[in-house]
C-alpha cells in the first residue's frame, strides 16, 4: 500500500454539458500541506465536493486510505479519514461550540469490534459475512440496549467525548468559548470552530475551504501558524483552497492551479508564481473585473 492518504486520478465532473472539473489528479500524503488555487469559478469547490462524496465523479477515481470511494456516501468517506470545512460556514448554529465538536467526535467513537476483525469477516465466506453483519448491528445499537437496560458506560463515554471535544477546542484556542452558541461567535472563531469540528472526526486528511475568508491580517497570520501546528500535531495531510495568495504561498509546499476546471499548473509556490499560464489566468480575471 502506498503512503498516499488521498489519491485522485483523472477525476472529471460534468454537469450536463458543463465540465466543472477536468482530469483532476492529486495526491495527499501524511504531513503534506498543499494548496488549491484558481480564479472564481475555476472548480475548486467542485473538486472538494467530488473528494468528499457530495458528487460522484463522472469519470476517474478517488481513493481514500487506499479504498476507492467513487459513489460512496459522504459519511462512509468521512469514516475512511477525510474531513472538510466549508467556504460558507456551516456550523450547527443553535448548538454550543462544544456540542458542535461533540457531534463529530460521537459519530466516530471507537467501534466495539476492531476494524481489522470486521474487515476480515466481510471479505470471508458467506457465513462470516453474515456474522459481520450481526456484529455490525450489535455495534450500531449497543448504546440502545445500554440506554434502555440502564447499564453503565453512558456517563463514561459522555465524559470521554466531552474531554476529546474540549481538547480540540483548546488546540484551536476556543476553550473560553466552549459554552457559547455557535451563531454568537465572532467570525474568525466560527472558522476555527469548523476546523475543530472537522478534526473531531479523527481524519487523516483535512480539506480546508477558504479557511481565512473574512479574517483580518492579524488573524490570517495566526491561522498560518495554527495550520502548520495542526499538521504536525495530528500528522495530517492538509489540502486548502484559498484566495489569499500571501497565505497560500506562505504555507503550502506544493500548489495546484485550476482554471475553468482544467489543471493549468502544479509546483512549488515559486514555480507557480512564475508560470505564465497562472499569471494570465489571474491577470485576465483582473482585467475583466
Amino acid at each position, binding site marked *: 500500500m502506498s503512503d498516499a492518504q488521498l489519491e485522485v486520478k483523472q477525476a472529471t465532473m460534468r454537469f450536463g454539458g458543463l465540465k466543472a472539473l477536468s482530469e483532476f489528479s492529486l495526491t495527499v500524503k501524511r504531513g503534506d500541506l498543499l494548496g488549491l488555487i484558481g480564479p472564481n469559478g475555476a472548480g475548486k469547490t467542485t473538486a472538494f465536493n467530488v473528494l*468528499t462524496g*457530495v458528487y460522484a465523479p463522472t469519470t476517474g477515481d478517488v481513493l481514500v486510505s487506499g479504498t476507492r470511494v467513487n459513489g460512496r*456516501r*459522504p*459519511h462512509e468517506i*468521512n*469514516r475512511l479519514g477525510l*474531513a*472538510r470545512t*466549508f467556504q460558507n460556514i*456551516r456550523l*450547527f*448554529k*443553535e*448548538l454550543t461550540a462544544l456540542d458542535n465538536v*461533540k*457531534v*463529530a467526535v*460521537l*459519530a*466516530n*467513537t471507537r467501534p466495539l469490534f476492531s476494524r481489522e476483525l470486521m474487515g476480515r469477516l466481510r471479505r470471508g465466506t458467506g457465513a462470516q459475512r453474515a456474522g459481520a453483519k450481526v456484529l455490525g448491528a450489535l455495534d450500531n*445499537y449497543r*448504546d*440502545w440496549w*445500554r*440506554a*434502555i437496560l440502564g447499564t453503565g458506560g*453512558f456517563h463514561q463515554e459522555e465524559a470521554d467525548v466531552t474531554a476529546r471535544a474540549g481538547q480540540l477546542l483548546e488546540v484551536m484556542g476556543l476553550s473560553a468559548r466552549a459554552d457559547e452558541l455557535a451563531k454568537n461567535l465572532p467570525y474568525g472563531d466560527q472558522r476555527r470552530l469548523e476546523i475543530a*469540528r*472537522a478534526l*473531531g*472526526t479523527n481524519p487523516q486528511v483535512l480539506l480546508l475551504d477558504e479557511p481565512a475568508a473574512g479574517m483580518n491580517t492579524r488573524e490570517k497570520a495566526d491561522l498560518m501558524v495554527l495550520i502548520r501546528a495542526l499538521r504536525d500535531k495530528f500528522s495530517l495531510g492538509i489540502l486548502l483552497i484559498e484566495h489569499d495568495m500571501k497565505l497560500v504561498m506562505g504555507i503550502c509546499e506544493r500548489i495546484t492551479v485550476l482554471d475553468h476546471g482544467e489543471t493549468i499548473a502544479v509546483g512549488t509556490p515559486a514555480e507557480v508564481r512564475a508560470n505564465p499560464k497562472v499569471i494570465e489566468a489571474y491577470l485576465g480575471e483582473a482585467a475583466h473585473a
Partner: protein
Amino acid sequence: MAGLLQHLINGLAEGTIYALVALGYTMVYGVLKLINFAHGDVMMVGAYVGYAAAFVLGDGALGSLWGAVLVFLVSILFCGLLGWLVERFAYRPLREKPRLTALITAIGISFTLSYGFQLKVQPEIAGKKVTLLPGADPRTFPEIITPAEWVTLHVPAPAPAPDEVDPAAPHDAADDFVEIIIWNWQVISFVIALALMGGLQVLVFRTKFGRAMRAVSHDHRVAALLGIPVDRVIALTFMLGSALAACAGILYAIKDTLIQPMLGVQLGLKAFVAAVIGGIGNVQGAVLGAVALALCEELVVGYASSSWRDAVAFGFLIVVLLLRPQGLLGRVQAEKV
C-alpha cells in the same frame, strides 16, 4: 367536583394516545422538516393489524398477557416496516426536491391508505376466505384486555337544592355519592404510553442515534460529512414513529372499541394539531400539547356540548399560534433579513 375529576381522568387517558401519535409527527418534522400526513393512517393500519393478530390468535388468547403482548408486537413490527417502506420509496427519492413535492406525496399516501382500506379484498386461498383489506364498515375491536373497574371512587354528591327534594320519597343512600370509575385499560394504556415516551426520551437524549438525529435535524448535509449515516438515521426515525403510532392505534381501539379506515385521518389531524401546539420538532412539546388538547376537548364535551369539541380544539390551536407562534415549547427561529 366529582365530574371534573372524571373528566380529568378521561382527558389524560385520551391525551396519552394523542401524544404517542404526535411524537411521530414531531420526530419526522424534526429530521426532515416534512409534515408526514400519512402518519395518522399508519396508526389506523396499526389498529387493523392488531385486530387481525387478535383474530388469528383466537378467543383463547383474549384477556391473557401473552396474547396482548403478541398483538402489540405484531402491530409494531408491521407498522415499523410500513414506515420504512414509505420513507424508502416515497420520501427518500424526493429528499432534494422542493418541500412541497414531499408534502403532496404525504397526502397521497394518506389517501392511499385510508381509502385503500375501504376496499374489501377477500380472496379464497386454499378454500378459506382470507381478508386482505377490511372494507369500509366499522369493526368491533376484540377485547384483548378484559375490561374491569380498576378503582371505583365514591365522592360525596353535592346536596340537592331543598325545593328539588321530594319529602315523600324515601331517602336513597346511593344518591349521596357519585361514582368515579377508573378502568383497568385506562391505567394500562396510560402506563404503556408513559413507558414508550420515557423510552423515546432515553433514545433521543442519551444515545448516539439520538444525537445523530438531532444533528441531522440541524443540517443533514453537514451531518453526513461528519460521518453520520443520514439515510439510516432518517429511516430509523420513521420506523420509531410508526411503531409508536401502532401502539397508539391499538390503545385507541381498546378505548373506542370500534375501528374504521378513516380513523387515522381524524385522530392524525388532532395529533398534528397537538404537535403544533406543543412546538413542532420538540419531543416534550408534543406530549404537553397532546395532553393540553385532550383535556381541553374533554372539558368542552363534559360542560358544554360534544358538537363544540372540534371547534374548540382548533380554536385552541389558533389562540396558541397567535400568542406563541412557535408553540408552547418551540424555539423562535430568527429570520435574518
